[in-house]
Every structure is written in structure tokens, then in C-alpha cells.
């Protein structure tokens, strides 16, 4: 199984830093999590327009009759395209034995795909709730925010790692004990 990354953290980190500089010069720093709200707004404006109109938070993203697909949304879509392409070209597409189960997770929690899906869904919900409350995620708050020396972003980064490390230790008790 080819699960070693193609690039070392040094090269990947350098490239990401340069991309961040280029993005800041051309448009603005990198960010992802806002686009989840934008996507919700796109879906709800066609599925339940009355509700979407009445929700102030959803309305604060985009303007009437022009929901959604702008620069930021294309950036996230591009991440999907670029990530997929590089996985495919480096022969790292669909490398898992079971597509839903990371081997490391399987070793700790067993072969239950539904259980992994519950983790994945709940984790995703917590991620975006937290990111929206903070106003950004790993890219917007941590990488872009700390690079701009924003004080709140340092606090966010410290807070993420404190609770992430604690949670990971609670999840992987078996692994840590062995």
C-alpha cells in the first residue's frame, strides 16, 4: 500500500506558504469553512426558499438571486479537483482495503463501517460548528490567521490542539496502552 506522502512536510509546507502569499497578493488569504455555509445557502434557497430567506446568518453569505458559486466556492471545488488529480497521478486513489475505514481506526475500533460513518459525521458537524463560531478553520484561522499574526488565531490554534490532543488520547486508549 502506498501511504507514504509524496512530498515531505518541508516541501509541502514551503509550497503551501508560497501559495498563501500568492493568494494574499492576488485575492485574499486562504479559507475553506465559509463555503459550507454558502453550500447550505445554495441548497436551502432552492429546497426551502422561505426558510432560507428568513435566516439571517444564511443571508449574510451572498446576495439575493446570486447565491453561492463565487471565488471561495471555486477554491474549495478546486481542492477536490486538485486533490483527486494528484491522488490519481501518484497512484494513491482508493488505496484503502475498505474505502470507509482508515486502517488505524480499524485497529482500534474494529470493522464497523456504520460506526466509522457516525464518527465521521459527528466529527464533521463539530468541526463546522466550531469553525463558524470562531469565524474560520484550520486554513482560514490557523494558517492564514496566524500568518497574519492575528491574536485570535493564536488562541484558536492553541485551543484546537489542546482539545484535539485530549480527545485523541481518549479515543485511542488501547493503542496508547499497548
Amino acid at each position, binding site marked *: 500500500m502506498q501511504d507514504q506522502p509524496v512530498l515531505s512536510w518541508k516541501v509541502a509546507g514551503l509550497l503551501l506558504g508560497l501559495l498563501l502569499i500568492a493568494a494574499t497578493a492576488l485575492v485574499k488569504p486562504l479559507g475553506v469553512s465559509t463555503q459550507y455555509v454558502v453550500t447550505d445557502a445554495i441548497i436551502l434557497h432552492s429546497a426551502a426558499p422561505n426558510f432560507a430567506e428568513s435566516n439571517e446568518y444564511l443571508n449574510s453569505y451572498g446576495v439575493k438571486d446570486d447565491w453561492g458559486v463565487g471565488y471561495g466556492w471555486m477554491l474549495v471545488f478546486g481542492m477536490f479537483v486538485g486533490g483527486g488529480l494528484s491522488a490519481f497521478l501518484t497512484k494513491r486513489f482508493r488505496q484503502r482495503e475498505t474505502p470507509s475505514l482508515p486502517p488505524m481506526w480499524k485497529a482500534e475500533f474494529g470493522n464497523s463501517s456504520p460506526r466509522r460513518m457516525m464518527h465521521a459525521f459527528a466529527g464533521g*458537524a463539530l468541526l463546522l460548528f*466550531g469553525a463558524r463560531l470562531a469565524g474560520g478553520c484550520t486554513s482560514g484561522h490557523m494558517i492564514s490567521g496566524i500568518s497574519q499574526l492575528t491574536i485570535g488565531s493564536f488562541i484558536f490554534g492553541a485551543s484546537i490542539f489542546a482539545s484535539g490532543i485530549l480527545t485523541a488520547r481518549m479515543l485511542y486508549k488501547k493503542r496508547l496502552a499497548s
Partner: protein
Amino acid sequence: MKLILGLTIGMAFGAILQLGGASQYRKILGTLLLKDLDVLKLILMSIAVGTVGIYALDLVDMANLSIKPTYVVGITVAGLIFGVGFAVAGYCPGTCVVAAAEGKTDAMVTILGGLAGAFIYALVAPSMQGLIGMTNYGNVTIPSAFDISGLWIAIPFSAILFLLMFKVLKDRYE
């Protein structure tokens, strides 16, 4: 034009995360279990490079900065919630998009969970205003707090990060 630029920057972003291994569950959990710090060091490297570049651009007025407000209590609570999701999902809001593109179905579900989480936030956003208003210092950065040019902070900060990456942080392999 903006759309094509977004797509291009996004494609590079996604490819870098994929090639660097940031979209791998075991790399994220490895970092959070403090066993394999590659992802943390990748992030630190991007910041060490980014901060100097951004504030060099700012010096010649070419940086489109986007400073987020610092509301200490709200951001701390948000980070604690985010951190739990980070460890439970094993992805972040960006890397799950990349991992989904690698054919990992759990990452696709994390995207769906993310859409649900953002929706729940939209429902309760009005009641979060108190938390956001509390201890809110506005769009403050370290250089703006000291009223100096950003590079004066960015350069030593970057040097500290390099020291951290290459001298202090040593991986503990199993």
C-alpha cells in the same frame, strides 16, 4: 476570471495537501497523539514562510489582508469544539474535501456532517452573539497592538518557528 483564479488556487491547495499527506487520517491522528508530527510541522512551515511573505507584501501595500476579530472566550470555546471534531473525524474542513477526492467515503460523510454543523450554527447564530460580543478586541494583530510594521514581528516569529520545526519537535516513532 475570479472563478478561474479560485479554481486554480484551490487545485494547487488540494494537490499540496494531498501530496503532503495532510488528507490522511493516520497523519492527523498521529499529530494529535504526538507520535508523528509531520502535519503539525507542515502547518508551521507554511506559517513560517507565509508570515514573512505576507508582511513583506504589506510593506509595499500589496497584501490583501483579512484579519478576523479576536473574541477570546468565543474563540476558545469554538476551538475546543473544533478540536473534538478534528480528533473524532480525523479530518479538518479542508482536508476532508481532499480525502473525499481520494475516494475515502468516510471523508465524504465528514463533508455532509460539516454541512449539517454549519446549518445548526445558522439556526443558533443569533444566540451566539453574546459569546462573540464578550471579550471582543476587534481585528487586532500583534503588530497592530504594538503599532509597528508587521515584518518586525514576522521575521523573529518565523525564526522561532524554524527553531521549533528543526530543533525542538522530534518525532516519537512507535
